[in-house]
């Protein structure tokens, strides 16, 4: 897309907020120390989390939800030998929020190898959350056996195709998309014709004033194609939402915070609860990044999303697990 150079680093500042986005994202991608991201009437502003977060932010919200991602239950390599422990820390963090979230969205890679025991462990941990409802979309690690049948049986009841669905919550329309199925050699993530048709139909009758939240595992914007960090047919999907006044796109997969604003569409990726991955192009590959043990919880985390309908504000707060929030 338009604001990335060859190394995947943003080259322009679209937000006019006085924050040097290039430097900011470069830093954020590594440290994940958290940020507040607000949108008002199509104008965006982002600030380093520690400078702006206050209780007032959440108190004025109409509702909030939490995004968690890439829990990779079953992973046991050096980058994090205790992924159940760090997921439990994330859950504790969610349960400690002053304003409990209405629901949780998990943006995929629940498991590492699609093993039933891994899904069982995840289920057991998530039963301990205060949230009444959890919505899921699959990552490529969740569809390694039987073409994703097991995932669908466990997490995709009532969904379409490989697990896509939509729902409404307090005036906001949420759409969960699947871009990890039937991937083609040499390509990126893929939504596919059938899902795109469904999406167009799902959005067609809705007025442009409806706030839209799209979520999927692999980013729906091109972050770094060399590492497969993008979705081949996402532009088609985005063409269906551009007429809406407020669109938020939430993804996982890249295990670090990145954001971009394009017109009324704001893109955001979440940290993993399991292990960090390197910033685009800064390592030989996208493999798990080993950081000193004492720093691990700074690069893992959750995203707490506050939605203020009356003020058209939406704030995403990325909180690392180490409590530096």
């Amino acid at each position, binding site marked *: 897309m338009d604001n990335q150079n060859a190394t995947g680093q943003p080259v322009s500042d679209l937000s006019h907020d006085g924050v040097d986005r290039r430097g900011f994202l470069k830093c954020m991608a590594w440290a994940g120390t958290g940020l507040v991201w607000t949108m008002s009437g199509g104008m965006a502003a982002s600030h380093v989390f520690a400078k702006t977060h206050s209780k007032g932010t959440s108190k004025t919200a109409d509702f909030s939800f939490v995004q968690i991602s890439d829990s990779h239950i079953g992973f046991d*390599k*050096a*980058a994090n030998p205790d992924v159940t422990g760090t997921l439990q820390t994330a859950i504790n963090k969610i349960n400690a929020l002053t304003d409990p979230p209405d629901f949780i969205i998990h943006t995929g890679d629940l498991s*590492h*190898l*699609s093993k039933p025991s891994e899904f069982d462990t995840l289920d057991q941990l998530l039963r301990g959350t205060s949230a009444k409802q959890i919505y899921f979309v699959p990552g*490529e*690690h969740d569809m*390694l*056996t039987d073409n994703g049948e097991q995932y669908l049986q466990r997490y995709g009841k009532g969904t379409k195709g490989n697990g896509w669905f939509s729902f409404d919550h307090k005036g906001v329309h949420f759409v969960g998309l699947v871009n990890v199925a039937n*991937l*083609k*050699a*040499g*390509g*990126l993530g893929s939504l596919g014709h059938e899902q795109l048709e469904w999406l167009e139909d799902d959005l067609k009758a809705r007025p442009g004033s409806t706030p839209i939240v799209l979520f999927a595992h692999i980013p729906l914007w091109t972050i770094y*194609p*060399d*590492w*497969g960090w993008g979705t081949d047919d996402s532009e088609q999907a985005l063409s269906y939402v551009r007429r809406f006044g407020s669109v938020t796109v939430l993804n996982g997969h890249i295990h670090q915070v990145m954001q971009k604003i394009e017109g009324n569409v704001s893109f955001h990726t979440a940290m993993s609860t399991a292990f960090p991955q390197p910033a685009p192009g800064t390592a*030989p*590959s*996208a*493999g*798990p990044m080993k950081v000193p043990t004492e720093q691990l919880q700074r690069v893992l985390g959750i995203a707490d999303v506050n939605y203020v309908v009356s003020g058209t504000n939406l704030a995403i707060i990325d909180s690392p697990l180490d409590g530096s929030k």
Partner: protein
Amino acid sequence: MKKPRISSGVLILAVCVLWIMASDRSAASQPSGSATNNTAAATNSTDAGVEVKIDNFAFVPAAVTVKTGTRVIWINHDDIPHTIDSSDGKFRSGALDTDEHFQFRFDEPGEFQFFCRMHPKMTGKIIVKP
């Protein structure tokens, strides 16, 4: 003189590793369908096989030329699982976790493209010559 000596040492080690694997069918990581039969047949053959490494989200080498009847062995050295899926559906490894391997014997000449279906940017091909 030093360099060639190291290379031959590595070569001998590689041959030993392949020989051990060829004689240890239980180490094969659940190859599916026709690949299972193919692997069983390969166990009795005398060829040492050709290795394709999976390293840093890439097949190394990405293109290999072999003679008909050669066994190709893919070994995953990454901390992330990968798959080996042939583009024409001829072979499909399932998920290979770290240090797991998959093997397939190529009994027909031709060019066989494959990729990782989790990370489809990872592609490679085996060229089989009579």
